[in-house]
């Protein structure tokens, strides 16, 4: 059998791939959650043009969106490895290059990338809120914080959902890049499997199928949320 389907089955690779997929999803979700927090914070700063901060945010989003993700991941991993090893050695832990550390750095890297894209989505959503709504709320004498909670936030959320869907899709695909620095996620498992069984085709094919399944399922989920949040208006 040229493709080695049997080897995949007998070598216990199926469970390894599923474990890798679980790590990919966990990594994607954690990065997306942190990215969304960064996005809302920076998006608000960019929308309100809070003076010195808006320059910092502009710098952050244009650098992260203009430089390849791989380069950012290399920067964070290589610059942190030495630092973390030194800190760990100072506290008497040798060989801390375990999965927990790799996962943390991976979340930082992917969250930084996804945060930059979320910022633009949130800023766009805030800009899409009709200014009349906010003026009307001010005219009614509603205090600023409640305007945000009752008028701005709900609309922003609804408008941002399709954009956040796109960010999520790119985020889950970006997690594959972390494999180059050795976190045992889906792509890494496929890489290791391809190397040890010498059947790269079937392993990368399975990995592609799993990624496709993840994106298709989450697409369905986002469509459902979008339908749920659609305002109930008269036709």
């Amino acid at each position, binding site marked *: 059998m*040229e493709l080695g389907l049997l080897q995949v089955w007998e070598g216990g690779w199926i469970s390894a791939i599923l474990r890798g997929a679980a790590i990919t999803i966990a990594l994607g979700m954690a990065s997306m959650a942190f990215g969304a927090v960064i996005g809302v914070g920076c998006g608000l700063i960019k929308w309100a043009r809070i003076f010195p901060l808006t320059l910092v945010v502009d710098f952050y989003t*244009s*650098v992260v*969106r*203009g*430089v*390849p*993700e*791989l*380069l950012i991941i*290399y*920067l964070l991993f*290589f*610059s942190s490895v*030495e630092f973390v090893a030194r800190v760990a050695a100072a506290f008497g832990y040798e060989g801390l290059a375990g999965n927990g550390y790799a996962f943390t750095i991976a979340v930082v890297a992917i969250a930084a990338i996804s945060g930059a894209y979320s910022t633009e989505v949130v800023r766009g959503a805030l800009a899409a809120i009709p200014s009349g709504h906010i003026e009307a709320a001010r005219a009614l004498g509603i205090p600023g914080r409640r305007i945000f909670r009752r008028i701005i936030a709900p609309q922003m959320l609804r408008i941002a959902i399709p954009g956040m869907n796109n960010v999520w*899709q790119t985020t889950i*695909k*970006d*997690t*594959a*890049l972390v*494999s*180059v620095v050795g976190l045992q996620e889906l*792509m890494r498992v*496929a*890489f290791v499997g*391809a190397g040890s069984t*010498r*059947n*790269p*085709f*079937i*392993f*990368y*094919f399975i*990995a*592609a199928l799993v*990624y*496709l399944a993840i*994106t*298709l399922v989450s697409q369905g989920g986002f469509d459902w949320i979008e339908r749920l949040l659609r305002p109930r208006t008269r036709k």
Partner: protein
Amino acid sequence: MNFELVFLAVPTLAKGLRLTAMLTVASVAIGFNLGLALAVMRLSNNRALSGFAKGYSTVFRGTPLLVQLFLFYYGLGQLSFVRDNPVLWWIVGDGAHCAVTALALNTAAYTSEILRGGLMSIPGGLVEAAQACGMSRLLCFRRITFPLAIRQALPAYGNELVLVVKGTSLASTITVLEITGHAKRLMSQTYAILEIFAIAGLLYLLINLVLITLVRLLEAHLTRYLPR
């Protein structure tokens, strides 16, 4: 900042710049034409053609570029009929050729979605008027539909170009030494990680700035009839 290091790094990374630019140009040139063909297929009334285009764009947009790259480079290289076929082996056997193929196929999927949006935005009356004038379908596409669609799609296509430039960095994972490949090598040789990152990042930002400016100029040229 260490100046000796800068003198070492800049010429090396500039060498990578040429390869990055070549990878980008080649994959965009192939990917745009493929994407245009896919967009037209997607909008055709033929079920099989539009189904194929839809499936193609779902698969290529639903999987990471890295997986596609490895599947082509390592996966197809394993199959004996690919290795025995000189044309296929020319594509798959070399890292740069393989990277261009994968990038072109990937960007074609995104381009097809962008162009489809542009093509769908054209008012039906324009096409009907062209038909009433007796234009053939090809002439109508060349003179009416395509110029209007591209004008509509250009801003989104500019973003896609930036994504292609960033995508070329993945070629470094299959032995192609473009900017990121050289940067990674220099990082592990010199340990001056932040400096190398800054220089490599600036080169990428420079490419993207040039591309975006070109797209803006083209857009201004195409919409020159509009009042400003």
